[in-house]
């Protein structure tokens, strides 16, 4: 009896990571592609290894959301997405209710007072891209504003390729100057 119960528990333990993978794969296969312009910083996770933390251009700006509380902790809202004329992702609006049509993601919004103005900050639900050991700092150096590359033309434009499906999002790739980050790192290693 105890053994049977244990096998059930073990199955549940395995189900958690499998469910995480299933969720991810579903979005990767059925999701629409959005390109989020980004700038990375290089933190480290003691358990999960090295990654670049991404700050998206689409998060910038001031927002208004009907029914959003003025104070308190961050609130979960729906951020509606679209593509700008250059093909990059933009947030077109925020709502407390699930949008009836069009692509959207669950995002966090928090308001605070700046003088007499009420300002809202949007946080997209994806902000990290995992890299191989030692590549975080190099990626940051490659993409950060202010860095001069060999031609002296300044920082390279970078964006995250994100798949969006039923409010969930998965970061698929990180592109720098039109090429995947892994290609850049591969070239530097050679």
């Amino acid at each position: 009896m105890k053994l049977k119960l244990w096998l059930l528990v073990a199955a549940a333990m395995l189900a958690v990571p499998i469910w995480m993978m299933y969720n991810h794969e579903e979005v990767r296969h059925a999701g629409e592609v959005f390109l989020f312009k980004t700038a990375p910083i290089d933190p480290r996770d003691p358990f999960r290894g090295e990654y670049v933390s991404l700050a998206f251009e689409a998060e910038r700006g001031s927002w208004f959301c009907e029914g959003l509380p003025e104070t308190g902790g961050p609130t979960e809202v729906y951020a509606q997405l679209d593509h700008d004329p250059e093909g990059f992702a933009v947030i077109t609006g925020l709502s407390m209710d699930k949008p009836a049509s069009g692509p959207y993601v669950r995002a966090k919004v928090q308001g605070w007072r700046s003088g007499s103005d009420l300002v809202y900050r949007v946080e997209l639900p994806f902000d990290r891209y995992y890299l191989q050991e030692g590549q975080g700092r190099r990626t940051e150096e490659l993409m950060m504003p202010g860095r001069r590359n060999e031609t002296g033309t300044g920082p390279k434009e970078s964006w995250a390729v994100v798949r969006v499906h039923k409010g969930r999002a998965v970061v698929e790739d990180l592109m720098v100057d039109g090429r995947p980050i892994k290609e850049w790192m591969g070239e530097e290693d050679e």
Partner: protein
Amino acid sequence: MSRDLLRELPVLLHEGLITPEQAERIKARYADAPEGGGRMMLFTALIGGLLVGLGVILVVAHNWDDLPRWMRTLLAFLPVLAGIAVITWAMARRPDSMAWREGGAAFLACALCANIALISQIYHVDGDMAGYLLTCSLLVLPLLYLPGSFAAALIFLALATGYAGAGFFAFEDARRPFQVLVLLAAAAPAYLSQARQRGNSTGFWWFSLFMALSIGISIQFFLRDWGLGRVLGMVAMASMFTLVPWTHPGREWRTAPWVLVGGATLLWILFLASYRFFWQSQGFLLTDQGRDMGANWALVVAGCTVYVLSLRQRGAFERWPWPEGLPIMLACYALSMASPMLAAVVVNLALLALGVYYVRSGIADGSLRLMNFGLAITGLVILLRFMDTNLSYVVRGLVFIAIGAGFLFMNLRLMRQRGRS
């Protein structure tokens, strides 16, 4: 020796030398009390399980980008499957072996944490550290019950406390890591069950230590302000901790770590409160914005209730004087309204009395450890007060010499007393 005896049990039963009840009692006696080689095996199994598990975490944290995704996924699941297989085998074939149970559970707990980390890494799953530690805690939790392991319990409590800490730094002001209360409550039945089955084992001592530390530290992550209210709440909680051994009269459960953690907290706070600035509103109280008033009051009320109820079973100052720290601090709080200086004086006197109490206990029991503890408290109070004053270096030096001589004299005296007896 015990294994040979256990192996012989069916034969002895068959020959009618012992009854089935006696056989069961002998089995229970040796099942959880590994001796000699058994204890060594338990130790090596536990350390081995932990080292292999931690090694797996380090290896996977590297991010093996050169391998294809399916291969990395398979690698992430292999340690978990191995851990499950070891525990399943141990439960089926060696249900009485503590070494297999503890070693297997320690390894599986590490493997589960590594698995979630690796899956997050391979699939770029988002989430902060608090979320990761919460998921790991929930996955490790069942191991406290099946197979019922001390090692898994310690890892679980460390993860749950880590979650509360990560939540404290990651969450906004309004949020509290409430889930940690659910996690700690979920560990409580396992703690009680282990107390009944193996209450006098070394493993249970460690379980008690981690429970006390985990509860004590996690509650701090609910509070935002550093004011007198928080200190009184901490005193109340520490006082409750030092009363835990009174909850199981007549049972030899190793709950001393609760007194250790509670006593250390009380001693630290008493030393802090021995300064006058502690009781003055322009000093310590400034950071108190009243955000945690509810939680602090709840702790103080709970502490007072438990203290008063405990007086039905124990006399004041019986066995150790730590629980009395709560009424003394509350009295000082009331006194401080009239005179902060008077409150500080009372705390200093309380500390001196505590020192004398342990010196006397040490001499009575012939314990150098207790006596030196008492001397250290007394000496430190005197030193701190002399540091406060503007006395010359010569006078301060003389005080140092006097305290040092006192230590040497008392130790020599106790050693002679021991020699005579």
